[in-house]
């Protein structure tokens, strides 16, 4: 019973962080802030959800629960690694465009959006 409460609390907290990250993506003014929102909040949300599910699985059935826990932790670790690399690559790419205006022919702002 107390396990259920803990699991639900963690699930809802994780979801709240996801919502926060999404709101950040929508409302922040430029790319670095949006990247920051996505990278931090979403991964924390994923981590909390993963922990909640691990507790739930182990409480239900300890033997296969350990294997499932490892798999879930792998999902979270990969998300962390991937998001870290993605953020770096995307931000670096955007900065390269800003600091090299003579390459405007290859600019990232989509030309079609500017066309009438």
């Amino acid at each position: 019973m107390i396990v259920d409460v803990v699991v639900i609390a963690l699930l809802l907290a994780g979801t709240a962080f996801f919502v926060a990250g999404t709101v950040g993506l929508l409302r922040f003014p430029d790319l670095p802030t949006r990247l920051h929102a996505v990278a931090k909040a979403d991964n924390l949300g994923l981590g909390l959800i993963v922990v909640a599910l691990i507790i739930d699985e182990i409480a239900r059935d300890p033997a296969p629960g350990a294997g499932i826990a490892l798999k879930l932790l792998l999902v979270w670790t990969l998300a962390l690694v991937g998001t870290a690399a993605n953020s770096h690559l995307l931000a670096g790419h955007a900065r390269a465009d800003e600091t090299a205006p003579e390459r405007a022919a290859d600019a990232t702002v989509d030309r079609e959006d500017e066309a009438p």
Partner: protein
Amino acid sequence: MGAVEGALIVVVTILLLCALAGVWRAVRGPRTEDRLTAFVLLGTTGAALFVVLATAVGAPALRDAAIVMVALATVVVVVYTRRRSSS
């Protein structure tokens, strides 16, 4: 229906709505990096959805799908940024 299962369904629904909201950023841009940021968010959200569904529906294979989803969301970004990286 158990309380935990109910909570799982609520989580899935909210995450789905987050994904839909991410689509808005993907469409708006204005830069392609913004769109790819939205895609990264969707990759993480998708992984979370797969993982929660795996427990809620009782389909362990979906956890493999979650790993796949999260590992491959990086591919798009690596491909896109391969031409000019500042570092």
